[in-house]
């Protein structure tokens, strides 16, 4: 049974990001829309189709996933970190909420924001490139798993972080480089060999490629292998966040 405590924390976390829609939903939308306009339309007009898919359409799954990844991470990381900073984390630490309930509420709320940003991005891009999706259920499942993965990492990062700089370290120095390297804007077959090898070592490549397979029906890697990897990463991220939460490290004195 879903407890009132869990539902309350989830509702509070969702309400928190809905209170500032310009910052949490509008800003990422503008950002990804600009990527779409610059890469998809300006450059796309000069590029050939990729695997039979127009370039502007080819980059949509990656742009959707980029919004999902960044916003899932930022929501849980910033919310929990700010609670630590303000001292309001006490409210949940003294409550009878279980560790799983606390983690579940933060992760679900953050994943919801990520999926919402992804959906808005898809709606804007779809207006130009069409709304056809090859395997909608698989696409949604993969996007949700990716959102859960980065929401879990956001919780872990907020527990670890002691400064805002540390909260921003992961998106700036890890997520963004791996996302750009991860095939958002190109097929791995378009890359020179050293970069192609590096791309295949990047876990975000398998996320983007899996979602692209589900949305467009074209992929560089095996879609099943990508799904298995994404599921394993989601489990690892949740396990890490749960372990840290349970240990009380940097939360309970």
């Amino acid at each position, binding site marked *: 049974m879903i407890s*009132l405590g869990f539902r309350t924390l989830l509702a509070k976390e969702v309400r928190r990001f809905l209170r500032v829609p310009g910052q949490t939903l509008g800003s990422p939308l503008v950002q990804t829309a600009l990527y779409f306009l610059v890469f998809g339309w300006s450059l796309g007009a000069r590029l050939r189709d990729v695997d039979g898919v127009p370039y502007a359409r080819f980059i949509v799954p990656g742009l959707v996933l980029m919004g999902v990844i960044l916003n899932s991470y930022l929501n849980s990381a910033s919310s929990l970190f700010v609670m630590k900073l303000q001292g309001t984390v006490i409210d949940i630490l003294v409550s*009878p909420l279980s560790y799983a309930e606390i983690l579940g509420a933060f992760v679900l709320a953050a994943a919801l924001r990520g999926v919402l940003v992804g959906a808005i991005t898809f709606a804007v891009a779809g207006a130009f490139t069409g709304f056809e999706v090859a395997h909608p259920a698989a696409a949604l499942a993969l996007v949700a798993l990716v959102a859960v993965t980065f929401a879990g990492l956001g919780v872990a990062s907020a527990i670890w972080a002691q400064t805002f700089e540390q909260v921003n370290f992961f998106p700036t120095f890890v997520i963004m480089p791996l996302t750009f390297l991860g095939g958002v804007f190109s097929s791995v077959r378009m890359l020179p060999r050293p970069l192609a090898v590096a791309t295949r070592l990047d876990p975000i490549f398998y996320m983007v490629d899996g979602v692209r397979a589900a949305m467009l029906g074209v992929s560089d890697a095996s879609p099943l292998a990508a799904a298995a990897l994404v599921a394993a990463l989601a489990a690892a991220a949740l396990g890490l966040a749960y372990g840290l939460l349970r240990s009380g490290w940097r939360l309970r004195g």
Partner: protein
Amino acid sequence: MDEPVVEIRGLVKRYGDLTALGGVDLAIRAGEIFALLGPNGAGKTTLISIVAGLARATAGEVRVLGRDVVRDYRETRRAIGLVPQEINFDPFFTVEEALRFQAGYFGVRLGEARLAELLEVLDLTAKRRASARALSGGMRRRLLVAKALVHEPRILFLDEPTAGVDVELRRSLWAYVRTLRARGTTVVLTTHYLEEAEALADRVGVIDHGRLLLVEETAALLARSGGRSLEEVYVDLVGRRQAVAR
């Protein structure tokens, strides 16, 4: 009045080389007001933080209503309300939302009557729909008290509840603490104001350098102190210990 609701045995808390609590034994009785006194850094906040689940003990055992605070944390935390020393607030939400969320975390649906009572008692009715950001310092402290009481805890911990609070609010908080005691709530408060402990507490405990120096009925302590105030007794006790330590 004699059954302990909180039992602390051999409680030790170390932060690296610093021993914040050096083996504390204490029993809090049901329905009493217990004041924990001590200088800054004596271990008062550490002690109540461990009981409330905000900190973990290095060694020892704490039981609330007969249950272990680590193993049975869900049950023990339902019985406890904590007003922390540091004022905190979430600027995203109103006073009413803050109270409804806090009740929800404890699995309690906050009814309109209970909400209205808490707002009334803590003089926050006019601020019901105000953002916590718009409250004065005293109001924010009252909101913390309301949040701690929202699930009707059997044991209320007040960590320096009247620090930086004006005289009028202090008196009204004292009156409300007495009301809570009359309703059967056990109250444990830490305070620097010895006048506060003398006016409110059934028993006082004095802690210094992580060790309990004294636990006694307030009336009995004052009676055997030859007409001295609690402040004089406290200064004598802590001052003597600090002199020995030097």
